[in-house]
């Protein structure tokens, strides 16, 4: 696809359940118990089990890949500013990724992102550059 500066990319919403976190833990090797045990999560002062920040970032990479037909990612980064709290029920929560193409130059497209769970932004200054 052609990416042009100013283009708005259709928001992508992905479900996040406890099962997603268990599966991601196994695939990534990140077995931090704050991502599967309410007991441990609350003991360290979190509201409950939270998604791996890297799971949220993986969903960002997924959205970018879907928008760009798998364009080569050159840079990807974000701050994890608010936790994605995942309740222990069948619905869990969702993460929605929206993007705007900021610039296309030197063979790279830079996309500014907004990543929310519910009404809350969960990533700070999420940014990605892909080769075009």
């Amino acid at each position, binding site marked *: 696809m052609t990416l042009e500066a100013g283009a708005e990319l259709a928001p992508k919403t992905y479900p996040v359940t406890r099962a997603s976190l268990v599966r991601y833990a196994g*695939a*990534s090797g990140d077995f931090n118990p704050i991502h599967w045990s309410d007991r*441990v999560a609350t*003991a360290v*002062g979190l509201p409950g089990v939270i998604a791996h920040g890297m799971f949220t970032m993986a969903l960002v990479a997924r959205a970018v890949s879907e928008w760009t037909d798998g364009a080569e990612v050159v840079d*990807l980064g*974000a701050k*994890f500013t608010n936790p994605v709290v995942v309740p222990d029920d069948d619905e869990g929560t969702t993460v929605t990724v929206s993007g705007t193409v900021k610039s296309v130059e030197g063979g790279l497209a830079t996309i500014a992102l907004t990543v929310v769970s519910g009404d809350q932004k969960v990533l700070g200054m999420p940014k990605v550059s892909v080769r075009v």
Partner: protein
Amino acid sequence: MAVDGSLVGRVFPPTRPYRVTDEKVREFAAATGVGWESGDPVPATFPIVLAFDAMNAFLDEVEVELSRIVHGEQKFSYTRPIAPGDVLTATLSVASVRQIGGNDIIGTVSEITDDSGAVVCTTSATLVHRAAEVA
């Protein structure tokens, strides 16, 4: 216990060589809801598998419990895409240590290199070590 600022600049030993396989990439992609086929691009956050290994070794060394770590920031900067067949290692160095509100804010950089020694990806992480509550 606060993490010692004298760690800044310390370079940890490289992780053991890791061979990227179709099966592992498919498993990782599936965990993020992506149906991955051989030949598809490797997910951009895949190197976290190696970087996380390097971080665990670092946390063991500084005697910090993983459950007290919350991820603050992560960045990936690629020199070239990763592909199945690559044999990669991660070498973690400590870039910064600060204390804010009783928490340690630890900046790390992991260089992911292939078996020729060429850097494939540099990934930086900010780790927040949450202080234990005062009893």
